[in-house]
């Protein structure tokens, strides 16, 4: 590592893999817990058309989120889907960038790459704020929300905000850790305060996630798979004649 780097940042970067390991371990326990629950067997004879089997139903169910036309709510409110996609891409990118930024910042040295990422962060940040506001101001959303729901959302918004601020420092950080020559970047100046805040926030985020609602993506494949298996076996998934369902 270069000399200019703040020891706190250095410390945080060095601890990141431990934090990731902790998160992975908790997830492993969670998955074990899920698998300890026996999955029910469907004895009924398979029904439906040739392409409607438990397996095709399960795959269809797993990827239905990528087919918004199969989900009535998104068909009715396409903007909800757009913001859902933006937000989830942004969060997935933030997690990936934490690792890339820490270990291979050189990959983020091109200004165009940083600009694209920042646009996604900005969009995700705005959507996140909207989602938080919706949760706070809509009576029904308020009624179904727990402190964890607000906190998880607020945490994500703040974290994405910091990610936006920090990502621009990737070239300087690459220089600081010796992956890039100083002559190849416009500035080698690291803005340490947001960087330190970002790393500690990231560490907190990664430790908190497995215990919060943000960990829903661990459940997602299981829940959708089993739901889809039943729906496929009973001749519902893949849905037939979607074109006729709503069109007038």
């Amino acid at each position, binding site marked *: 590592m270069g000399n200019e780097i703040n020891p706190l940042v250095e410390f945080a970067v060095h601890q990141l893999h431990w934090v990731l390991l902790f998160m992975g371990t908790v997830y492993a326990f969670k998955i074990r817990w*899920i698998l300890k629950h026996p999955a029910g067997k469907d*004895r009924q004879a398979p029904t439906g058309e040739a392409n409607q089997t438990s397996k095709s139903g399960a795959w269809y169910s797993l990827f239905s989120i990528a087919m918004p036309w199969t989900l009535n709510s998104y068909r009715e409110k396409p903007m909800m889907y757009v913001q859902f996609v933006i937000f989830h891409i942004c969060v997935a990118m933030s997690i990936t960038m934490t690792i890339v930024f820490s270990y291979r910042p050189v990959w983020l040295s091109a200004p165009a790459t940083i600009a694209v990422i920042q646009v996604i962060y900005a969009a995700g940040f705005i959507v996140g704020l909207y989602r938080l506001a919706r949760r706070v101001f809509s009576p029904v959303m308020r009624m179904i929300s727990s402190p964890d729901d607000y906190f998880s959302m607020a945490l994500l918004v703040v974290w994405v905000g910091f990610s936006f601020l920090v990502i621009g420092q990737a070239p300087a950080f690459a220089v600081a850790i010796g992956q890039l020559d100083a002559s190849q970047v416009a500035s080698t100046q690291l803005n340490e305060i947001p960087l330190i805040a970002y790393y500690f926030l990231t560490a907190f985020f990664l430790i908190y996630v497995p215990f919060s609602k943000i960990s829903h993506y661990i459940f*997602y494949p299981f829940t959708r798979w089993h739901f889809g298996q039943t729906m496929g076996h009973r001749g*519902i998934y893949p849905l*037939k004649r979607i074109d006729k*369902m709503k069109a007038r």
Partner: protein
Amino acid sequence: MGKTRSYKAQKVVDLMKAKTKSRQIMLSLESCVKCGQCIDQCHYVLANPDDPTFAPPYKADKLRKFFKAHEDWTGKVIPWWVGARSIYTDEELEELKDVVFGKCTGCRRCSLVCPMGVDMATFNGMARNLLYSVGIMPEGVWAVAKDQWEIGNQMGVLKEDYLDTLEWMEEELQSKHNDPSIKIPIDKKGADIMYTINPREAKYDPRSIADAAEIFHFAGADWCMPSEGWDMTNFGLFVGDPSLGAAASSRLYTAAQELGVNKVVISECGHGYRSTKCEGPNWAKMDLDFPMESSVITMLDYIKQGKIKVDKSKNSEKVTYHDSCNFARSCGMTEEPREVLSLVCSDIQEMYPNRQWNYCCTGGGGAMSMSEYAPMRLKSAKIKAEQLRATGAKIVVTSCHNCVDGLTDLIKHYNLDMKVTQLVNLVANALVVPASKMPKVMKEVSMPLAGKKILVIDDEPDVRIFLTKIFKENGCEVFEAPDANQGMRIIRDKNPDLVSLDMILPHKTGEKLYWELRKDEKYKKLPVVIVSGYTKIDDPKIDFDAFLEDKGIPAPQGFVEKPIHPDVLIETISGVLLEKV
């Protein structure tokens, strides 16, 4: 010191722990991210936009909170943070009852849009089962479940009444076609088909049995109906009870095995079809070696294979098709009924949304047996009513008996100019009978009650529909009331010629109303016929004779016992009214 828990609450907690061992249920309870996507998919929400307590995730949270308090990692350590809370009192169980029985029909519309795959209907069923296990449920649900346990069918139809009805329908068919060879075979060993029905058909809608028999006869089918195990409905589904589910479905499967039939045909009923074909083998833990199919498929095959001929011009009124939630959303039956409809009707108007996204009839999940929630149900039916009205159809067709009742009730409530029917009725009506089998003599119809005004007071919508149908077929003008107070108002406003009065009514009993009428100078001679299934054997508190004696009032002009035989009813009513004349 920990909070104390009532005996029932403790039992529910213990049972919940056992139930959530199933991965599918556990996942549905764990996975909700409170995204709100499902909220405005629920008809209760759409009809009550200002009441957030109808939102599916809010309703689900009533159970989820308490699952989290016991099973979820974070919920056990910092419950308040994730909204976890256990259940302690009987009052809380009562609240849960109002949610899982009164505010959700288990229609699964929300499940189909949930990006996470949360299956609200499945765990709502589980929650119902927890409450049912400690005796907390709407009274009507208890009565129906009890009948299914005790008598073997959910409407308490006795074997002799069922067989009588089949015989009666057989005679009707024979006389309609002037053909004594038309039969409704019973317990025919080795028959190709065993036809199973909803007890509602035996009790209130025998015409559907006759229509199905007519179709089987003209298709040349080798079929029969069993004398036992003929009820394909299953209240186990509505109370989420696998034991009742197993008891009811295995009765039917055993009948099929004993008769050695090749296949079981299930008459048009959404929950019956789902219970018998899909859930039953799981509940009964039986791997069955005979296929089961809906009568919709059977009828479609008969038409397509040319076994029966139909003429769609015989059904020329504009029809629309309502998808039953269980039939469409839980069993994928969306295209087959439409295909039948297109073959037997000439003017079809699709309703929107349709198929898996259609709205619930609002009578699903056993809601028709929960009279305490009827006002809420009918308010929530506004969405369905608007959907029906927009079609401009005169007839709404559905392949579900529950939906027939739910829709009939809302059509009346919202004053829609529509009637409800099933595919079997339309197919039978469209049948082209081979010339050789044409009836030789048309039966002469006389209507001794034509023009009479009859008021039906009964809290069961099924019974009201049935009685109204019979009276209307006999030319009467009919008024309906679900309770004594509304009945009294109609008596004052409409001046009926006769009152058909049930004994067990909510708020004020039939006895009490009868007494009030007899005390009233104006109405003391108004003919009243008691139509009731309760006697002092069922409930010692109901000793009507002692009541009459005690109050010193004369006996009513007639009594008709439930289950009601239309001939007996008309005979009694005619006797009373014509004698009066």
